[in-house]
């Protein structure tokens, strides 16, 4: 037991070191700075509970947290359905490792063009004079350009799904690859239909992958601020934007307070999810 512990510690040491130096220490320092009253900083002693009072007492803060969670829920559902289907196709319908690899690489390539450039390109794609509107107009499906394609809740969701589906695909695909093919054969031999195999064999065995993908997507959407800002044309606010707006005017204490509430919220959500499926237990 003790030797096993030491072995695990050694293996986990590099990770611990990185997180200690580049995550824990810096965050502690920020917290310390927000308390500072020293001459060097004027962010002053207003890291009091006033910031929390405001957060919990303000209708807007509740609304923004609500919207952020709603957005996370919608994007989670969409990426789950799309991601599961894509992973299923890759894992069970593509027969060679080589082609699985190639298709996976092809899904990654769009992300090697900088996100800023891709963000800019949504305007010519979805804007009033954009490709999609032109195509729809050309096909006679609409009479005037659709406004809601861009700078709307729709476009924010679209961009999230675009960015994060892959984060669902990868872990689900990996757990699917661990499913013993003999189990599926056995189910088929026992007369199970394709759909029954999917729901009774594959889906339960893929749960840890789904859970990991869900953690990715929920964490990414909840802490985002760039995508929401860009794609809604600043018309929608999520928690990340509250923090960014505060930081922009050097309101560090207020930003830290919001960040703490965000962090706790997301960890609680993820903690609850892990109660349903313990990804570590099923290793």
């Amino acid at each position, binding site marked *: 037991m003790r030797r096993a512990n030491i072995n695990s510690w050694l293996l986990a040491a590099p990770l611990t070191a990185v997180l200690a130096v580049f995550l824990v220490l*810096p965050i502690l320092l920020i917290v310390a700075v927000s308390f500072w009253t020293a001459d060097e900083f004027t962010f002053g002693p207003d890291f009091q509970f006033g910031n929390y009072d405001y957060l919990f007492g303000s209708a807007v803060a509740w609304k923004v947290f609500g919207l952020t969670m709603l957005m996370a829920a919608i994007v989670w559902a969409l990426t789950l359905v799309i991601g599961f289907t894509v992973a299923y196709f890759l894992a069970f319908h593509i027969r060679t490792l080589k082609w699985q690899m190639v298709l996976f690489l092809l899904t990654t390539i769009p992300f090697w063009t900088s996100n800023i450039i891709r963000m800019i390109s949504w305007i010519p794609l979805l804007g009033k004079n954009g490709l999609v509107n032109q195509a729809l107009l050309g096909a006679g499906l609409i009479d005037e350009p659709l406004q809601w394609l861009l700078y709307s809740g729709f476009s924010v969701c679209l961009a999230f799904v675009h960015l994060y589906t892959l984060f669902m695909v990868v872990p689900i695909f990996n757990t699917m690859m661990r499913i013993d093919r003999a189990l599926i054969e056995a189910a088929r031999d026992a007369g199970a239909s394709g759909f029954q195999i999917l729901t009774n064999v594959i889906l339960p065995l893929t749960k840890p992958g789904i859970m990991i993908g869900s953690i990715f997507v929920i964490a990414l959407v909840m802490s985002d601020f760039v995508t929401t800002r860009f794609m809604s044309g600043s018309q929608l606010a999520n928690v990340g934007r509250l923090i960014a707006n505060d930081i922009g005017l050097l309101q560090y204490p207020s930003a830290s307070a919001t960040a703490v509430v965000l962090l706790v919220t997301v960890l609680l959500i993820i903690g609850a999810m892990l109660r349903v499926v313990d990804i570590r237990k099923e290793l």
Partner: protein
Amino acid sequence: MEKRPASFYVLGAFFAAFMLFLYGPTITIAILSFQGPDGGLTFPLRGVSLNWFRELFMDQAVGDIWGSFRRSLVLGLMVMVTTVVVSVMAGLAFRRHFAGSTVLFYLVVGSLVIPSILVSMGVGLLFDRTGLGSHWATTAFGAQLTWTLPFGILIMFAVFNRFNPAYEEAARDQGASTWQVFAHVVLPLIAPALVGVALFGFTLSYDEIARTILVSGSRNTLPLEIWGMTTNVTSPVLYALGTLTTLFSLTLVAAVIVAVTVMQRARARNGSDAGKGDL
């Protein structure tokens, strides 16, 4: 080879639609990169030209695309390798419960959730106050690892999920050392998944802004440089860069296909059955 079921074609069509969706912005970028010399970043096209590809290789008014590209490439590879190695090690560690494993696990999840700008600011503050200074290859490297490692490690969770220990036990019974078990049994089994981790590591680093922005020292990475450039007039040069990146990546993928095919043929000739299994 057995006949494809009908579901293959339905799912295949779904996958194709998904790819079209993923490539939507890429296609727009490709079209607009051929914008005429007077054109901008949006439709309409004002003529068709190779002007912006030419401009891409000349000095920009603001920013240094190629210098920052080189830095991003090197940094991306550094982060990629580190992410794979550290994630595999941590993944192995997490296969057993150890004292402190729960704390470490939630720290990993926390690292994913915490607003990136706070990480960036904290790291910058720490290295500034300690007089160590910030540089893209040190502070930015570390800050990016706090971003890529959670992904790498959680993917390793999926990989080691229901990982059959029977192979390892068999090897150990035959007298293999711990290292031999890892190198000859575990590693080959998880290797394909590591390609995924590596790709994630590289892509996440290559495109990272929020955790890098305050800690890259006085030389920017590519996304930071482009971000800085958008605070002034930008041109379809950015699109030309996107188009070239995509073309280069597609060529790379084609090369990988050819290389793998050649290797498989060579192996098949040598009688090995590795990599042949129809999945």
